[in-house]
């Protein structure tokens, strides 16, 4: 049985922040490695960039942009919660953060498709 607090929208916001952060931390070394190819292996970097044009890789990229946006906007909500005067509209803030994440990742999707 799902515990009551785990059916709350802000619990989902917390979980989205945690999972997006975890996945981004796992992705970062690969991102740094690929950029590091520019140091001595520009041709390999170009090969990798061509590989990213496959539809399934593009889809994964759009997912990564969504994760980054979710973590960024969700993190801004948390910083506002901690550093600014209390607002009772936390669910609205979480909804706005989610909407902005979809907006940014859709913008990215439109630019690469």
């Amino acid at each position, binding site marked *: 049985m799902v515990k009551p607090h785990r059916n709350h929208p802000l619990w989902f916001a917390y979980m989205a922040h*945690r999972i997006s*952060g*975890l996945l*981004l*931390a796992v992705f*970062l*070394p690969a*991102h*740094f*490695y690929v*950029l*590091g*190819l*520019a*140091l001595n292996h*520009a*041709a390999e*970097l*170009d090969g990798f*960039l061509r590989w*990213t*044009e496959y539809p399934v890789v593009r889809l994964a990229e759009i997912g990564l*942009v969504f994760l*980054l*946006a979710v973590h*960024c906007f969700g*993190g*801004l909500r948390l*910083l506002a919660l*901690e*550093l600014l005067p209390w607002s009772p509209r936390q669910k609205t803030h979480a909804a706005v953060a989610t909407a902005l994440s979809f907006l*940014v990742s859709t*913008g*990215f999707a439109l*630019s*690469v498709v």
Partner: protein
Amino acid sequence: MLGVRLYLAQRISALILAPLVLGHLAVMIYATRDGLSASEILSRTQGSLFWGLSYGLFVAAVAVHAAIGLRVIVAEHVRLPGVALDAFTWSVGGVLLAMGARAVAAVVL
């Protein structure tokens, strides 16, 4: 698990990262409109003090932020002694800092 110093480091690195990530998202949308190539990326970044400082700051802040974030997750799910948790945190931060510094050097120098 997360003392005051680590808590502050996590929040300060988040405050540094927020505008850098928003900028990164905007650049990604702008730069990928006509496809990406190594020469296109390097023409924008090589020799640029602005991009060197921006990405350098990004790497330093993200190494701190990710290391502490992963520490919290590990501490909540695995029963580890404090020394092992510290070693894990420093290792994650060190690897991200080293790999990130190499990536910044590769695209800026």
